[in-house]
């Protein structure tokens, strides 16, 4: 009888991304999933990878997950503190970022991403994604809350543009581009020639048919398609100890925050009654 373990989708996604990081890689992180993947890789198989934040913190050892990309808890243990333009120019645009993480609200079959407008509504914007998508050697795109589309309403961050070598003809450096897309149901890679996205693995409990239903184009499937690897106990332990609110999913995070807020409000009310 195979042993059963409890695991969240967030953990499956974070571990899959972490395993894509090689020892020695220079990794551009934000907060949330990417941060946890970078942290996990550093604690597991890639102790010499160097994490870099947008605001200029190089090689941090934060005591808790960052709540936003420039959270100063990242200064703990850091080797260098510079600023945003310095980080983008001397590290990213000059070609020293090996892995960067992107998130897509909309993503098309060539890995182009929209995070700017949805139904005309200004949803967020590029942040640091556009340059990371353009200049990191390998980008890992998370579509945890987003969806796949035939054509993005707005291209915020270039992937492989129209496929084949269009990305490089448009002026982006060779040896860069999306490497991996991690969705809520499966993991995808890009064909070496056409640069079209194909299915590499399906998450536990999901069928290929279910994934195909969510993809508006005729999705190609790798002949070697497998199930997405399940996190090991050690990986789960590291993630849950350091970042329970990221690893255990959004609903867990919300309930923790609601409890915290309620105790905050209860204290306020108790104070008022005393008065």
């Amino acid at each position, binding site marked *: 009888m195979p042993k059963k373990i409890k695991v969240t989708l967030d953990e499956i996604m974070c571990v899959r991304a972490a395993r894509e990081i090689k020892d020695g890689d220079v990794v551009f992180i934000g907060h949330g999933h990417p941060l946890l993947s970078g942290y996990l890789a550093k604690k597991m198989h890639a102790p010499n990878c160097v994490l870099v934040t947008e*605001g200029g913190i190089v090689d941090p050892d934060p005591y808790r997950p960052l709540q*936003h990309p420039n959270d100063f808890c*990242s200064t703990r243990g850091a080797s260098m*503190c510079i600023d945003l333009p310095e980080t983008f120019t001397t590290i990213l645009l000059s070609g020293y970022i090996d892995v960067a993480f992107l998130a897509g609200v909309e993503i098309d079959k060539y890995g182009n991403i929209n995070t700017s407008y949805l139904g005309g509504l200004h949803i967020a914007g590029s942040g640091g994604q556009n340059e990371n998508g353009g200049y990191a050697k390998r980008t890992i795109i998370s579509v945890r809350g987003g969806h796949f589309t035939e054509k993005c309403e707005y291209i915020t961050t270039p992937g492989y543009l129209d496929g084949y070598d269009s990305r490089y003809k448009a002026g982006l450096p060779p040896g860069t581009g999306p490497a991996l897309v991690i969705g809520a149901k499966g993991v995808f890679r890009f064909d070496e020639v056409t640069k079209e996205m194909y299915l590499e693995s399906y998450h536990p409990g999901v069928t290929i048919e279910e994934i195909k239903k969510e993809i508006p184009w005729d999705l190609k499937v790798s002949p070697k398609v497998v199930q997405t690897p399940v996190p090991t106990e050690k990986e789960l332990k590291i993630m849950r100890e350091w970042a329970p609110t990221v690893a255990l999913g959004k609903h867990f995070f919300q309930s923790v925050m609601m409890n915290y807020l309620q105790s905050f409000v209860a204290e306020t009310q108790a104070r008022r009654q005393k008065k």
Partner: protein
Amino acid sequence: MVIRREVILLVEPEIHDKIMPMAEAIKKFVQDGSSLGIASVGEPSPMSAIHEVVRQKKRNLTVIQAGSSMDIETLVATGCVKRFISSYVYRVTRGERAYDRGLKKYNVEVEDYTNYTAAAMLMASAMGLSCFPAPMSLVCSDIYRQRSFLGENKIKLIDNPFRLGEKLALVPAFNPDVSVVHVQRVDKFGNAQAWGPLTNMKWGALAARKIIVSAEELVDHDVVKLSPNNTIIPGFRTSAICIEPFGGHPSGLTGYYEVDFAFGMVYVMSSLAEETYQDWLNEWIFGVANRAEYIEHYIEKYGYNALERIKVQYYPSSTVKLGGTFKSYTEAFGITQEMMEQAPEFLEVEVE
């Protein structure tokens, strides 16, 4: 009051003229129709200055910021902003934010860039340049193709004069009338020191013609002189100095206080509906006169313990070695009075 002020002016005009309450700084340097640079990316956000702009109901501002969150939301939602050079607006929830309602209600025009290129526009201005090169990833996106109020001046694509056959993208320098920044400490001359994730603070501040420095602490000039590497704005560029403890709250400040998550949650939840949002504004912005009252209200409402939760247990940064041999040339080279008198290049001139 007037007499006292004149007396101070006679003593040290350039010094005491700069230290002023936030209300005075905003009144003096931010006018209706001004362009305003917010020199932060998320943290530490100059929230005290932002709240004062809202309190004084400034209108038709053009705002630039490389990466925004509740700072721009507060300005947009209260009708202060006409045009916004944006690169990212933090979205905590899928629901309709006060920012979304503000954009619609006040017909705010948005010009989209990226965190880096918005920073580069400010950096160009701070460096006295007319433009700054932009990465080609910008040209490969709809950020290049779709344009709002900056039109053809948003991004230009030229033939790279140094690399045959290559294109070069340029973004224009953006020179705001005034910028606001919140730092850890400042001296009475306006030398502003900051550390931690510096994000875009230095460039965002120096890009503007006038700089309002909001600081957690006023320190002796000697303190600044002991760590001059930490100064991001030289005193001669600072127009106003506002001493605002907890001036970044609810965002965090390295070495002082963490981001106030619980308070941020209260804010986000109130921002989801117009009525509750107005209540929040009335309580925390219009209901208080300044940042000191805001903090007093916070302590009164949530207790001092609530403030203690976010206070940082700091450790000192290791000291670096500054110094010298402290020998003058006279001492170092053994120059005597006699040697100087025999210097061969003296001229003899007549004096009256």
